[in-house]
């Protein structure tokens, strides 16, 4: 209980410290990058709700991200770039994600985990094709630029908004996984048959998890497109899902802090490797490095950074207890 409180307070403290960044520096590049980190942290946390907490693998998480991004972009372009319409567009993205996640979830989650992974991959590629072909609405792969509401134009303001949203969603999701419903999700991850024999209906809980994850991912997509003020079909591609996967796996599955750390690391690493492209053209293919890193992480560090650190702490603690106990025994003896 005590440790939990410490981690809550430290997150809040880091959040407050990060609030001062826009007052210290005026570098727009850094601010945009930090904003992107916050947005991808939201996205990765939503992904971890599936992968880490419920044990569902999705290879199409980009579709929710893309749905949110496209609904915001299209509303800003077609209707009017005001705050009211921004909220409506976010809401539309959320509702669309809700519908899609329910349909995909109900169809495949009663089957083995492979089916959900396959079907999400297929549905996401379907969305990509639709976005490419429906040129009337999306302008295909060329994409389009749009204007954003004046409030969101100011980079420091938007930085703060994203930071607050990230922290808020962190606590909301934390509340969610600590709720009775969240506990059932974790039980499903550990042993689905046992949960079922206890009288729960796993399908209902799993679909709920995918809905919450999809809705959160859609919000991240809406924010992402506001940063760029431009959209094209790349929001539906595998790269976006891959980002979430890497951030979650490297940061630490089954924790909420892990994906946030992972988001920071991966964004910085991407920037760094892209800069190295001037040195040698192989660095343009950054997916190779991330892919190999990812495979190694799955084999050797399946719990990620946070998980590994937690293990060390637990080990150190048990050693300390070991040191203490023989003495106590002697005293008792």
């Amino acid at each position, binding site marked *: 209980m005590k440790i939990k409180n410490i981690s809550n307070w430290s997150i809040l403290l880091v959040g407050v410290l990060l609030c001062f960044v826009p007052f210290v520096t005026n570098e727009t590049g850094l601010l945009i990058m930090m904003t992107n980190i916050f947005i991808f942290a939201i996205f990765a946390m939503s992904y971890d709700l599936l992968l880490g907490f419920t044990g569902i693998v999705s290879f199409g998480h980009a579709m929710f991200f893309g749905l949110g991004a496209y609904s915001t972009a299209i509303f800003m372009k077609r209707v009017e770039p005001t705050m009211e319409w921004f909220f409506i567009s976010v809401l539309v993205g959320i509702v669309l994600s809700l519908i899609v996640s329910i349909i995909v979830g109900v*169809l495949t989650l*009663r089957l083995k985990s492979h089916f959900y*992974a396959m079907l999400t991959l297929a549905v996401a590629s379907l969305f990509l094709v639709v976005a490419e*072909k429906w040129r009337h609405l999306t302008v295909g792969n060329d994409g389009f630029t749009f204007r954003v509401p004046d409030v969101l134009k100011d980079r420091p303001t938007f930085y703060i908004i994203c930071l607050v949203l990230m922290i808020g969603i962190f606590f909301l999701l934390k509340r969610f996984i600590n709720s009775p419903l969240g506990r059932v999700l974790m039980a499903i991850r550990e042993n689905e048959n046992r949960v079922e024999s206890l009288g729960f209906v796993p399908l209902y809980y799993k679909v709920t998890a995918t809905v919450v994850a999809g809705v959160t991912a859609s919000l991240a997509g809406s924010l992402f497109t506001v940063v760029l003020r431009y959209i094209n079909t790349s929001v539906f591609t595998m790269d976006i899902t*891959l980002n979430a*996967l890497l951030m979650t796996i490297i940061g630490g599955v089954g924790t909420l802090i892990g994906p946030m750390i992972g988001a920071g690391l991966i964004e910085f690493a991407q920037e760094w490797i892209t800069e190295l492209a001037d040195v040698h053209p192989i660095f343009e293919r950054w997916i190779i490095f991330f892919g190999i890193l990812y*495979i190694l992480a799955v*084999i050797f560090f399946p719990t990620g950074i946070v998980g590994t650190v937690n293990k060390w702490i637990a080990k150190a603690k048990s050693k300390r207890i070991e040191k203490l106990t023989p003495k106590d025994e002697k005293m008792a003896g």
Partner: protein
Amino acid sequence: MEQIINLLINGISTGMLIFLLAAGLTLIFGLMDVLNFAHGGFFAWGAYCGVWFYSVTGSFMLSIVFAMAVGLILGAFTEKVIIKPVYGNHIMQILITLGLMLVLTEMLKVFWGPNQLSSTAPEYLSGSWQIGNVIIIKYRAFIIFVGLLVFGIVQFILKKTRIGLIVRAGVMNKEMVQALGINIKRVFMYVFMVGSAMAALGGAMLGPYTGSIYAEMGLEFAILAFIVVVIGGMGSFTGSLFAALLVGLNQSFLAYYFSELSLAANMLLMLVVLIFRPQGLFSVRG
């Protein structure tokens, strides 16, 4: 009428290519419960190796053999290095094979560049026959022939030989087979290698069929193969042929009449199967 026959041949040959990919996928899944997301990568590697070797040696048949050899080696490597550490853990398997898929796709771009490669059929397979008003393109007939040949050979091995008996028994109940003193893991590795070689064969034959190849086609065809596996039933070999033909025909007819809808129609087909027969049309385990 001629148009319909042409589309029919077109669809069957596309179906055969998808079948080569899906058959390995479904056998591997049926035998060892491993869903290999990197399977499309073997397909793309087969295509690139085939085109490259053909341009070096000038012999199409040799290039197909070379592509299959690359498939065998890739399969052995994957089974030994990537899948062995994560046996029995479904989530890890799914995650790690997807990682391999991405690495394989990017490696293709490192070796051959990110642009499309053009590919041509050899002299004796290009051109067409004309029967009445119907034009049959030779290369498509060749694909259908090879597909049926592979289906026949694998079916013969599965149904008539001892190793086939072990594989079929393993799909039904692998613990029992193991209890009878058979090293099912080694059998699995052979099946994995053969499945990879079949995927590479499919890739090598795709090049001259579409005229150009690119690295991302691995994932695109893998998605079609997944659809096939879901429709046909996981672990069913005959089911994968049937479903692949269905998907191929669907693809070719819809691509002709409403080109935008072909993937959507296949997805719809899969959704219908998932609603009414979630275990697939030809399920082994019922």
